[in-house]
């Protein structure tokens, strides 16, 4: 089956004539096949929301985690190959721990992001290891500096965002996010808005099975620590979304 990059897409060590590295672009495709994850930088913190497709009724709720803690103060949400994401998170945890041991300070998020970016880039250089097939959103909240959100893609580009989406429905999600007034929103409101985007805009009920919402936050309320959003709040958010639907109908 001949595709776009035929001939130049065997290894990440080959550029195509128009200057592209196809293996890295194919890695992006792996991310686009996965379900959507959203990150929002609000007034008082950062909130992550992930649309998790429930593959089987036998699966325990909350299993197959896609959001992880690094140190106590940083959260990472993944989209793409979860195993790849876990590998990068493991590296992130190592970096954070080493930094803390050496300097007695917790690692600043922009330092961690820089280091992860460098780490991801290494895997785009050689023909015997493949690029990571996942994107990460890294979020943290600091009393003085406020909330920060970064996104690292498989090509190792790391950008800072006010609001970001990765995965299958990222285009629709980004459109919805751009309509929100993030600087005035609290984290509790963001939980509702993210639930709304994931349930109504991104999730296609006809095509896919049921979904589960995995949400986490780092905010003033959690005192700068990364925690899962309490189940009660998620349930309330889902109720609210259902209520909105009825209103519109």
């Amino acid at each position, binding site marked *: 089956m001949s595709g776009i990059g035929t001939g130049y897409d065997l290894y990440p060590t080959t550029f195509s004539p128009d200057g592209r590295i196809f293996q890295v672009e194919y890695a992006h495709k792996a991310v686009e096949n996965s379900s959507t994850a959203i990150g929002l930088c609000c007034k008082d913190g950062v909130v992550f929301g992930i649309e998790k497709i429930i593959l089987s009724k036998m699966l325990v709720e909350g299993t197959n985690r896609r959001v992880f803690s690094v140190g106590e103060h940083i959260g990472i949400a993944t989209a793409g190959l979860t195993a790849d994401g876990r590998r990068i998170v493991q590296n992130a945890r190592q970096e954070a721990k080493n930094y803390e041991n050496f300097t007695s*300070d917790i690692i*600043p998020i*922009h330092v961690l992001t820089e280091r992860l970016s460098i780490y991801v880039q290494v895997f785009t250089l050689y023909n015997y290891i493949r690029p990571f097939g996942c994107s990460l959103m890294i979020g943290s909240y600091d009393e003085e500096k406020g909330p920060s959100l970064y996104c690292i893609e498989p090509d190792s580009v790391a950008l800072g965002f006010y609001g970001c989406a990765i995965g299958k429905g990222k285009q629709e999600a980004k459109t919805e996010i751009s309509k929100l007034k993030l600087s005035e929103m609290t984290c509790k409101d963001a939980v509702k808005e993210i639930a709304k985007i994931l349930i109504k805009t991104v999730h296609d009920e006809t095509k896919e099975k049921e979904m589960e919402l995995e949400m986490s936050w780092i905010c003033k309320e959690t005192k700068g620590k990364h925690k899962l959003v309490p189940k009660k709040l998620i349930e309330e958010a889902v109720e609210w979304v259902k209520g909105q639907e009825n209103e519109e109908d």
Partner: protein
Amino acid sequence: MFDLEKDFLYDLSKEVKTGTTVMAVTFENGVIIAADSRTSSGSYAVNRVTDKLTPVQDQIYCLRSGSAADTQIISSYVSYYTNMFSIEEGSQPTVKKAAHMFREFLYQNKQYLHAAIICAGWDPIEGGSVYSLPLGGSIVKQPFATGGSGSTYLYGYCDMNFKENMTEEEAEKFVTYGITEAIARDGGSGGIVRKAIIDKNGVRRKTVYGNKLKKFWEK
């Protein structure tokens, strides 16, 4: 009688008295650090005008006592790493960070090293701070610290004369008289008194030459 243990074997667990007196004290605007200027090798003064006030960063200094070789290499490592970290983070390194880096080197290599360091400086977060890092590689934050062989003669003096939040003048007097007294009593310390005042405006270095040192009770 030649005693093998006392006279010949080098016992690391005893505090080895090397020639130095160093002091660091916090005052209302920052820290003042001071040291004598003698480097000795046995009874020979190798350098009588040594500068023991070593810059680690613009506003972070360290006072070195123990093996000159060990302390010099470690302070250049810490200087290097604080530089790299401050570039990565885009902000001035804190004294706490530099002190903890010293600790990491001193503790992880304690079998090989013979170094005691006082790390003192000013940063915008804590203001002036003094950290004492003695032989074993522990770290203690203190309002003032003394080190070196001459420091044994200063414990009483410091306890009786130290006050929190001294003015610059008072603090300068405190360290100058302290080093002077230690030079007078300790054979391993001598020469001139070198001082540095570190506050938010930077570092000001001063020297008090031998003939200007105040004479305390002397016959």
